[in-house]
């Protein structure tokens, strides 16, 4: 049977903060048409980590409880975010609240600079990362491809970085593949997860082919016509991209080169005769 074996990549599974994960895909839990679709999409993705958030409680806490039950049933690790935070203090307090409620010291750290691009405020990000690392958190910072910011985050104790592909929710793919390639080359040993901006499986595959360690996405799955099938498509594409990276991609050439052998081509002498 010639079907691709999804377990084939088991030996190269991703390890973040000493935790071995079953997949290089991380998936968000927002914007799905229904809790059922969310659960099915997460399952179809094979992701070992889902991102979650904290929001002001509603309906006497019932909403939060139902969500926790839903996520708990998925059997995956939760990664709370600090989405929407604009300052170091907001991000730190949100992280601390998340640690208590979600019972995890992992945090996807977002400190947002503006509404147009939702890009990280790299100063706030670095400062919050230092505070949270000192407070015992395992910080996964949402950052840019900036090497000086990356270095600051690593020095602050982060062991994983999550550079953006493109602004959150734009679905543009890798806006600056050249800089991302530089980042990959500059930090060969740091787990780097592309987070945000991924719009299609081909984008995710491209990131993996470049050697990134994983991809975190949400909108492209949740807002697909069929989120469950799209989740599976991304999972396949991420596996494919990683396998390609590990299998050794051919280089690009400027000039064409026949695949079929030239030696023994029939009529070759006739041609010369014609010329």
């Amino acid at each position: 049977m010639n079907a691709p074996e999804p377990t084939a990549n088991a030996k190269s599974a991703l390890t973040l903060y000493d935790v071995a994960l079953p997949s290089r895909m991380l998936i968000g839990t927002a914007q799905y048409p229904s809790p059922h679709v969310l659960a099915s999409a997460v399952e179809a993705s094979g992701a070992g980590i889902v991102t979650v958030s904290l929001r002001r409680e509603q309906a006497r806490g019932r909403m939060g409880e139902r969500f926790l039950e839903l996520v708990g049933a998925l059997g995956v690790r939760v990664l709370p975010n600090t989405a929407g935070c604009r300052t170091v203090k907001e991000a730190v307090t949100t992280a601390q609240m998340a640690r208590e409620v979600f019972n995890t010291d992992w945090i996807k750290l977002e400190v947002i600079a503006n509404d147009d691009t939702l890009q990280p405020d790299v100063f706030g990000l670095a400062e919050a990362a230092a505070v949270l690392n000192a407070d015992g958190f395992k910080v996964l910072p949402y950052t840019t491809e900036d090497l000086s910011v990356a270095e600051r985050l690593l020095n602050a104790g982060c062991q994983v970085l999550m550079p953006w592909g493109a602004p959150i929710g734009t679905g543009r793919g890798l806006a600056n593949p050249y800089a991302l390639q530089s980042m990959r080359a500059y930090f060969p040993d740091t787990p780097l997860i592309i987070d945000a901006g991924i719009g299609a499986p081909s984008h995710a595959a491209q990131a993996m082919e470049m050697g990134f360690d994983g991809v975190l996405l949400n909108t492209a799955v949740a807002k697909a016509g069929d989120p469950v099938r799209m989740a599976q498509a991304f999972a396949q594409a991420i596996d494919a991209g990683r396998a390609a990276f590990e299998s050794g991609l051919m280089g690009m050439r400027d000039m064409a080169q026949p695949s079929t052998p030239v030696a023994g081509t029939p009529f070759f002498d006739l041609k010369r005769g014609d010329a």
Partner: protein
Amino acid sequence: MVTQVEVRTLIVNGEAVMTAAETLADLVAERGLAEAKVATARNGTFVPEKARATTPLFFDDHIEIVSPRHGG
């Protein structure tokens, strides 16, 4: 004998609220959240669950009570 209850105005989750709660634990209970999966902050600083009972409330305190939600 009549016990006099002091009522304070707080900002809870962004909205002005009148309450007789004297501690953050009281406030959480008053809102029916004593058993709920919520986390709290007072004036921008995290208040762990264990500290709520010893966290007094003052006029114009900004309180956040948050619970799990989907996220990206």
